[in-house]
């Protein structure tokens, strides 16, 4: 049945994002869990939560595999079944989807989903190398590709095919930095200008430092329940009504298009159909702006505008905080920060706050339907979810 609640979100938590010196991933995850539990006094975490599904990209950062039982323990859930999922930067978007499946299976009534990454203690070289592991090794990494390099290839192609400009990309960064000034948990809370973006140092032409998201430490989590029992835990649940998961070839060079991500299109199609909604029904969205060009391409792939019109979409101000369809009110990966494994559930957290009227200085009025789009790597995975105010 279209638009039927698949699960309810009854609580969510987010750590402060940023450079969290002296902390390890598990301690940051515990910080997010604490908020989710405090927001939900009727929840008895250890008794009620049937499983924890936690997203994390890379064991290289902390030299630690076998992460799920650790997160379960540090969250105060020792002995609760826990599993890590990995889908590069879409790891915790995937955790949401498999959290939903766990509830829909009927085995668990309450599931905790989350994600984390501890990154900033590593050098730029190390972080660049670990992140690049999410691209194809034999042809891309071996022959000199980097992550910014792959998105730069898409940017060059988009500029060549549609006339998209570096100024339009810069506007995405300016917007997201502005939104982050209103989010006390954001990694970076300062306004930037188009000129600052354009004159920042080149990372991979045409992408400059301020076109790139941040290397951050952070964690996120949410409590999902069967829809029928949501009101036992909160008067203001948010329902997940659509879920989509697209995959594509690992190598950018192998894909049909260099200016559109098929994984996003497939995930969006599945999620819209399940929700019985279309792009024009979306009131607010958190989308995966790992690089400014990625947000522009996502406007198009999610159907917010036509192919090639993403640059104009931002130029016209549609996705700004007071625009018709605010995108990345949290500040996005660009300015809120991008602890990769935490990002998918951090997007859900922002939609949860917005749809329950708790987004304070960045609250969007009259929003009922939200969407999140979480991309893995250069686009071999995409997870889309659609949410409705309860």
């Amino acid at each position: 049945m279209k638009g039927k609640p698949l699960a309810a979100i009854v609580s969510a938590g987010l750590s402060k994002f940023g450079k969290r010196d002296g902390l390890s991933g598990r301690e940051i995850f515990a910080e997010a869990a604490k908020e989710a539990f405090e927001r939900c006094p009727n929840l008895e975490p250890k008794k009620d939560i049937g499983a924890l599904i936690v997203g994390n990209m890379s064991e290289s950062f902390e030299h630690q595999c076998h992460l799920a039982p650790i997160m379960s323990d540090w969250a105060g859930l020792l002995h609760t079944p826990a599993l890590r999922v990995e889908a590069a930067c879409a790891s915790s978007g995937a955790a949401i989807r498999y959290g939903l499946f766990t509830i829909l299976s009927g085995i668990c009534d309450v599931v905790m989903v989350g994600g984390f990454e501890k990154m900033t203690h590593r050098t730029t070289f190390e972080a660049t190398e670990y992140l690049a592991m999410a691209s194809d090794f034999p042809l891309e990494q071996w022959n000199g590709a980097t992550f910014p390099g792959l998105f730069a290839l898409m940017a060059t192609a988009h500029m060549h095919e549609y006339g998209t400009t570096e100024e339009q990309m810069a506007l995405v960064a300016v917007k997201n930095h502005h939104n982050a000034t209103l989010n006390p948990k954001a990694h970076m809370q300062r306004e930037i200008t188009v000129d600052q973006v354009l004159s920042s140092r080149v990372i991979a032409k045409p992408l400059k430092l301020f076109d790139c998201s941040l290397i951050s430490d952070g964690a996120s989590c949410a409590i999902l329940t069967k829809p029928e029992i949501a009101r036992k835990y909160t008067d203001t649940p948010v329902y997940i009504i659509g879920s989509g998961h697209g995959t594509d070839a690992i190598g950018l060079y192998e894909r049909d298009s260099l200016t559109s991500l098929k994984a996003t299109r497939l995930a969006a199609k599945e999620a819209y159909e399940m929700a019985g909604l279309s792009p024009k029904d979306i009131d607010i969205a958190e989308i995966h702006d790992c690089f400014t060009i990625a947000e522009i391409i996502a406007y198009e792939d999610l159907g917010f505008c036509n192919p090639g019109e993403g640059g104009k979409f931002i130029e016209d101000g549609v996705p700004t905080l007071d625009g018709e369809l605010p995108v990345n009110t949290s500040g996005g990966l660009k300015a809120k920060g991008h602890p990769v494994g935490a990002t998918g559930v951090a997007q859900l957290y922002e939609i949860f706050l917005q749809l329950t009227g708790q987004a304070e200085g960045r609250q969007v009025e009259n929003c009922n339907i939200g969407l999140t789009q979480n991309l893995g790597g250069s686009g071999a995975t995409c997870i889309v979810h659609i949410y409705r105010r309860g």
Partner: protein
Amino acid sequence: MSETTQFTIEQFYKFIGERKLMGAKCNKCGNIFVPPRPICPKCLSEDLSWVQLGNRGKLLTYTVIHVAPEKFQNMAPYAFGIVELRDGVRLPGIIQGVKHEDLMVGMELEVDFDTNVSPTWPKWPRYFFKPP
């Protein structure tokens, strides 16, 4: 089937070491693909042959990488792009011998080889692009 003719990435790079750019061709549907794999990704046939690909192609998109992984840092900034060969196969790689300001979508490039293998795993050589 002998080990040397298996449709593996290892074998792809063995050919690169012999200065040959080879792809897998499906004898059933005609699809040519790189990297090779044990089944045709289009029709799932296992009836495959190796074919030598033409070295010429055109640049589909490019970037200039300034922040590089450690093992490429001594080359940075370097040009990197995706080239579509005449057979329709696409390859990513470093572009040498072109001034960065002269890079253009659509420009003709050809594949060349650096047959030195890495001292540690995976002990593969590399290919790169240059002007014809």
